[in-house]
């Protein structure tokens, strides 16, 4: 294709996005758009399946049958989200096996929050309330993003996430209405998950390399700092209802701005975890690699069996 033709296509493409039209897999798209979407959607899919691990960690130890069933259902929803996000990503011309390979080799990233350990039952509440809460803030705008399959997947994901968030908050509420020990467990979980949750909204705008392009393609509608402020403003009153205190001595309501001021985020910790040196990076990735490698003989058998069945059917037809 001549340079001029490409330029023409690009102009038509940008105009479609500006008109809020959806881009579908068979439509022409700039290579950079395709690559950016593969990166973001797969990162999101990987986050869902790695995210199954910290919560899966408590399924066998859930404190009641009701909680066990709810947690199983939640982790299963995450697997489902992973499934449709991988499918959305595959429409961009990459296979699920290739995406796994990128995850296992460390080339693809997933949300850093899942590199923190879940050490008490209250962490199941804190993850639902804070981590899913921050995820929703990140994800709701994606329901209107320009790439059709991603936008449609996100509508379903967001519905389920908001249910998870309420469920997590309800775990916290039960703990906070319980014994002194339970309330301490809840406060301890908030102390450990608060800052990593703020980090989930991404580096500050000044440091964010993808923001500008992503805003243009409607992969992003607000900047990281705006989203973070929204999360804090929404979450602080919820902590008040629980009777828990946010572990930030600088947190203060600002009459003038109509927002909460908050303390400095430890970005050194953020980058340390992103670069693979968080408390559980190694374990999370190893668990995924082990599941994949230990499952190889099972997947091979399924393929071999399907081939045998197909041959049989052909033989019978002849």
């Amino acid at each position, binding site marked *: 294709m001549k340079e001029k033709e490409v330029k023409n296509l690009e102009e038509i493409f940008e105009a479609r996005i500006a008109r809020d039209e959806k881009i579908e897999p068979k439509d022409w798209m700039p290579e950079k758009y395709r690559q950016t979407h593969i990166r973001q959607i797969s990162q999101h899919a990987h986050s869902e*399946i790695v995210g*199954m*691990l910290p919560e*899966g960690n408590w*399924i*066998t*130890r*859930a*404190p*009641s*049958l*009701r*909680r*066990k*069933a709810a947690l*199983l*259902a939640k*982790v*299963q929803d995450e*697997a*489902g989200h*992973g*499934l449709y996000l*991988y499918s959305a990503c595959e429409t961009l011309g990459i296979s699920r096996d290739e995406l796994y390979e990128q995850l296992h080799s460390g080339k693809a990233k997933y949300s850093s929050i899942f590199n923190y350990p879940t050490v008490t*039952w209250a962490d199941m509440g804190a993850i639902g309330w804070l981590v899913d809460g921050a995820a929703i803030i990140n994800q709701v705008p994606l329901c209107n993003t320009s790439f059709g399959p991603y936008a449609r997947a996100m509508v379903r994901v967001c519905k389920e996430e908001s249910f998870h968030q309420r469920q997590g908050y309800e*775990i916290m509420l*039960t*703990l906070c*209405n*319980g*014994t002194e*020990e*339970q309330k301490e467990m809840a406060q301890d979980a908030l102390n450990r998950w608060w800052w990593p949750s703020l980090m989930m909204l991404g580096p500050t705008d000044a440091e964010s390399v993808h923001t500008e392009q992503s805003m243009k393609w409607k992969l992003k509608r607000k900047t990281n700092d705006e989203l973070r402020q929204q999360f804090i403003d929404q979450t602080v009153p919820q902590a008040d209802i629980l009777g828990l205190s946010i572990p930030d001595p600088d947190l203060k309501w600002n009459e003038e701005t109509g927002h909460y001021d908050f303390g400095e985020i430890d970005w050194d910790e953020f980058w340390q975890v992103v670069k693979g040196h968080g408390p559980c990076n190694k374990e999370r990735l190893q*668990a995924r690699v*082990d*599941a994949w490698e*230990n*499952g*190889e*003989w*099972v*997947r*091979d*058998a*399924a*393929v*071999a*069996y*399907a081939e*045998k069945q197909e041959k049989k059917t052909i033989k019978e037809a002849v």
Partner: protein
Amino acid sequence: MKNENLYRYILGIADSSLILGQRLGELCGHGPSLETDIALTNISLDLIGQTRSYYQYAAKLIGDGKSEDDIAFLRIEREYLNVLLVEQPNTHFGYVMARQFLFDVYHLMLLSELKNSSDETLAAIAAKGIKEVSYHKRFSGDWIKRLGDGTQESHDKMQDAINDLWRYTDELFTMTEADAEMSRNNSGVDVTRFKEAYYEEVSRLLREATLEVPERKYFQYGGKKGVHTEHMGYLLADLQYMQRAYPNMKW
């Protein structure tokens, strides 16, 4: 307790669902593919759901403000009445599927009869579970075929699992005193009646999967009387951890 036999009968059924559900819960996030992961979680959820219905009924029989969770979490090992088969570990995916299939065939036969129980609550729980368990059996049966008739490696692994777990199958058809009494008054099921049909169905599928049907004369028993394999204590340590560490709290 007035309905001691009914109570013990319910536990005999419900404990097997609980323990198998618990075992499957260990696998969440570690399956050989995302699809199998979702399916195993789903089966686990079904089993835990069924368990809750049975225990809620059993809790009413005890009265005294007891709940489903008291029954699930606060008994000692000797008081759990599940069959030995379901507590066996997730050695590999072949074992998981063999354990599941050997149990599902029995489970579906049990519920299909139990839905005619003169005890309305049991009949209703059974009727509700049939659709779920039919799906479990189809899933596990399909995997036995895929693994048995897949590659040489999967065939050998599947055969090992069947050979190892076979010794726990005969226990499914033993009757405790409570079972016998419940069967006499038509509220329970006489499981000995479908033993033959069970081995026929299982053997047919194993042959279809190109697997050998083990010829074994020696079997292991005990679960139904609360005498378990060594695996059980560790499983309960996980299961009961929160309730033991933080007694008398609401979660």
